[in-house]
């Protein structure tokens, strides 16, 4: 049981929660995730990125969007309640240029929607390792931006905001400023985290410029430890398990069409489950 010590609503359907998990807080590195269960008997196992952690308080921070039944249930838990199970930290930590090998350089971080949350610890680590960090934050509209303040602390005036409808920052898609930056040259690495479709187009954008592009895949998972293969995806010519080989991969090698199709496997059942859960809270 992991007690919730803080909860905050960041936007209409995005929540931040700080929960007790001392061992995970001590071990985790940027880029790793946990598997969460709201109910241990009949619940689902859902992967969520560790957005932040405090060794002193023995807590980790999760930021999640209510997209289906399990995340909706989670959003109804309050401070003092407990999350039934949290397993982690899972996955490979992010390779931070300048810290884990290589010289620091110019890195562009692209966060789409909720993808800004998992981007935060990575951008922090990149900055700490001496990289020149530019952050592009994209959302459908102004109300959907999360963690703008935190990201500005890292990137300063190199924070680019962009919305589909122009309600905040530039109007357009994240790939537009990304293309301009690549065009201007001197981008050493791009890290893109967001909806699969956004990551796909970021990878397509950088490909002609030969800029290394790392993406963080959010496939459907069960165990998160490599025993089911449900999270598998084709990268290059190989089948990879996202939970143990990833979640980060070379965006130029990911088979995006397959990724998008596999993400939709349980859509009808999930829609029904969400409706059921929504009715419970009415």
């Amino acid at each position, binding site marked *: 049981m992991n007690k919730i010590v803080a909860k905050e609503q960041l936007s209409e359907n995005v929540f931040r929660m700080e929960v007790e998990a001392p061992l995970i807080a001590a071990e985790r590195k940027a880029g790793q995730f946990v598997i969460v269960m709201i109910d241990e008997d009949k619940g689902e196992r859902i992967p969520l990125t560790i957005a932040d952690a405090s060794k002193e308080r023995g807590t980790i921070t999760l930021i999640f969007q209510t997209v289906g039944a399990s995340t909706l249930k989670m959003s109804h838990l309050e401070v003092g309640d407990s999350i039934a199970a949290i397993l982690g930290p899972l996955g490979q930590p992010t390779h931070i240029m300048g810290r884990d090998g290589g010289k620091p350089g110019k890195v562009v971080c692209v966060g789409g929607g909720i993808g800004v949350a998992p981007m935060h610890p990575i951008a922090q680590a990149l900055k700490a390792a001496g990289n020149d960090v530019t952050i592009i934050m994209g959302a459908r509209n102004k109300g959907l931006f999360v963690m703008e303040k935190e990201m500005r602390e890292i990137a300063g005036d190199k924070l680019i905001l962009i919305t589909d409808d122009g309600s905040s920052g530039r109007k357009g898609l994240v790939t537009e400023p990304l293309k301009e930056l690549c065009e201007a040259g001197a981008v050493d690495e791009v890290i893109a985290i967001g909806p699969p479709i956004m990551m796909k187009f970021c990878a397509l954008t950088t490909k002609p410029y030969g800029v290394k592009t790392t993406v963080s895949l959010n496939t459907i998972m069960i165990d998160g430890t490599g025993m089911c293969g449900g999270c598998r995806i084709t990268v290059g010519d190989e089948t990879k398990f996202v939970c143990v080989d990833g979640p980060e991969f070379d965006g130029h090698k990911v088979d995006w069409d397959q990724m998008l199709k596999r993400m*939709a496997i349980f859509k009808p059942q999930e829609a029904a489950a969400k409706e059921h859960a929504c009715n419970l809270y009415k």
Partner: protein
Amino acid sequence: MTPKERMAIPCQEMPEQDAVVRARNMKEVALGFTAEQAKIEASRCMQCPTKPCMTGCPVAINIPGFLAKAAEGDFDGALKIIKETSLLPAVCGRVCPQEKQCQKFCTMGKLMKNVDKAVAIGRVERYCADHGDAGEVVCAPKTGKRVAIVGSGPAGITCAADCAKAGHDVTLFEAFHKAGGVLVYGIPEFRLPKSIVQKEIDGLKKLGVKVETNYCVGRTRKVSDFLEKDGFDAVFVGTGAGLPKFMGLPGENLVGVFSANEYLTRANLMKAYLEGEAETPFWHGKKVAVLGGGNVAMDASRMALRLGAEKVYLIYRRSLEEMPARKEEVHHAKAEGVEFLMLQNAKEIHGDESGKVCGMTCLKYELGEPDASGRRSPVAIPGSEFELDVDTVVVAVGNASNPLIPATTEGLEVNKRGNIVVDEHNMTSIPGVFAGGDIVLGAATVILAMGEGRRAAAGITEYLKTK
């Protein structure tokens, strides 16, 4: 009684649910003997002085000993004898491949010229375990030593129990949210009720074993942390063979292709069969092909029927004779309506525009020369391609060992297949770190994993005396 008279005692048939009914429910298929049947079946044992059956049992249970007690109706006494060597008789009595182990060597079967007419050792064992009482377990005085057990399958459960009995302070770590290993996530309810596994886990807790679920060793903490920082004196690694193998077929990553591990985990552990209650979704295929011929393939195909498939094909590239699955499960699967396509194999899986499985090309095979394993190896017949109309494919061609612990434990020796190398006491290349079960043997059996857990526990106790 003369051997002739014993031969005249009728073999007892185990009652089971009707095939048509059971193929659509999750309740246990084989219902178990009645007390009377258990006594009669046990009385078929001729008490052979050379005890050939015992050589077939990987843990050498005193079989004639317990059968003699059972024949008298002393099931408590019988269970006590069984428990001297086996910790999980309720499980092994149900899932051991008896026809290849104890019963294979049984003199009665030899006399009757039919292994199926051997004394039904496993079934009597099951009866004793379900209905007997072996009495309270007494633990040795506390040694003050602490042992960490990693993985809660049969190897881990057994090692934990024996270490607790030896007086050590034991903590069991399991990555999943429920303890039991394959016994809870793989083997289905209709073959091994989960309440039986739960009873074993509760038994461990009664012995004072602390059970920590949702704890992934190698990630949450490393094996070296246990020894160097957390004050454990010894560690046992029983993490099983959890890595699903795929075949490398074109189309294997399509939507609707599952590893048997995923398919069975969704159904068993995540309770996807409780539609409307469980939150983990399940893929309800109408025409399901299961690739493989072992117990895992049998379980997956029978699970598919129970979850509403109209047609289930079991596709195996050798013949029925070579099939590694337990004989009883093959019979059960056939009776329930699984169609066996022998000497055939998948060549390519086809998908529609949304990436979903919509068919499969298969090839026919014939048996050639025996291969390294002694089995005749299947050879594809050129030009024998044919199409099979399926919407779901379950790949059940085996599991490799889980690489997480070796990858995160410096100095831990593994062999070419990734299995952990151990000595005769099941100690690994790192002093104080022991291992056993599928992670050492490769995908094997419950009873072998249990035996390894026992040997490792004895090894740990010896090792701790020297510390």
